[in-house]
């Protein structure tokens, strides 16, 4: 059963590229902001890191590799559902340059996916760049 969820994710997101390691030791925010060392489960901590580490929001058409992406809750409750790292901008016919994201899906695997191919809300996606 431990691998069943991973298998289901792979079936539902066939275009995504999944890593093999399933680690509960860090989550997406731990991957994005803490070098895979810990889980960060409080969205207020994420917001604080953005401020204290001098992240600035960037427009979607200015995104480049190295920026981070935040999937904010559409409920306006401040919850940062998911985060990841922009690793590439891939030309896609009719769409333009689509950000490719490396992120950790909860307690599951690290995944390379297009910005809109993941199990998180897509209606409030924001990009940030560290400026320090």
């Amino acid at each position, binding site marked *: 059963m431990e691998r069943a969820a991973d298998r289901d*994710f792979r079936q539902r997101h066939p275009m995504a590229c999944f890593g093999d390691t399933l680690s509960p030791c860090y989550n997406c925010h731990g991957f994005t902001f803490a070098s895979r060392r810990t889980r960060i489960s*409080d969205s207020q901590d994420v917001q604080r890191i953005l401020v204290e580490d001098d992240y600035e929001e960037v427009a979607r058409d200015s995104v480049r590799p190295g920026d981070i992406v935040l999937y904010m*809750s559409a409920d306006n409750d401040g919850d940062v559902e998911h985060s990841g790292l922009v690793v590439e901008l891939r030309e896609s016919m009719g769409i333009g340059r689509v950000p490719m994201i490396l992120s950790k899906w*909860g307690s599951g695997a690290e995944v390379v996916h297009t910005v809109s191919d993941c*199990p998180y809300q897509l209606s409030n996606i924001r990009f940030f760049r560290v400026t320090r």
Partner: protein
Amino acid sequence: MITWPEDIDSSELVMTYVAANTPAYLFKRLRSSDSVNRLAKAFAPEELGELCTTLLSSPVRRQVDVARAYALIVALGAKDDHYRKGVLRALDLAVLDWGNAIRGMITARDIPTGTVTISPLPVMPLPAGAVPGSVKSTPLPPQTVIQVSR
């Protein structure tokens, strides 16, 4: 002893649990899950609590057990039942990373769900020069005089 109903699929619950990075995500996704709504309809609050306790008291907890326990807690929160508050309060959720956080979210949403419609009374026209009773009966606040001596 109450056991997990086999007709309620756990794979969706496990996926939600595994994907969750924050307790708020887990709570919101479970709250809108069909499986959770079915649990809420199928069981009384004390049954949900008993099943949750059974899952959490197992010395070896599998991922599916934890996902089911969270689903039961959220199902308990979805019950429109007077007794569920007591059951929710009595659950020992210390073994779950986000158990207390999710209980807090449920409690924070404990707002009245019923509405009472009050029909307005018919307005009777007052005779010319009359003062409405609601105004007339309002006493003036006591006057306080503060004397400042120099």
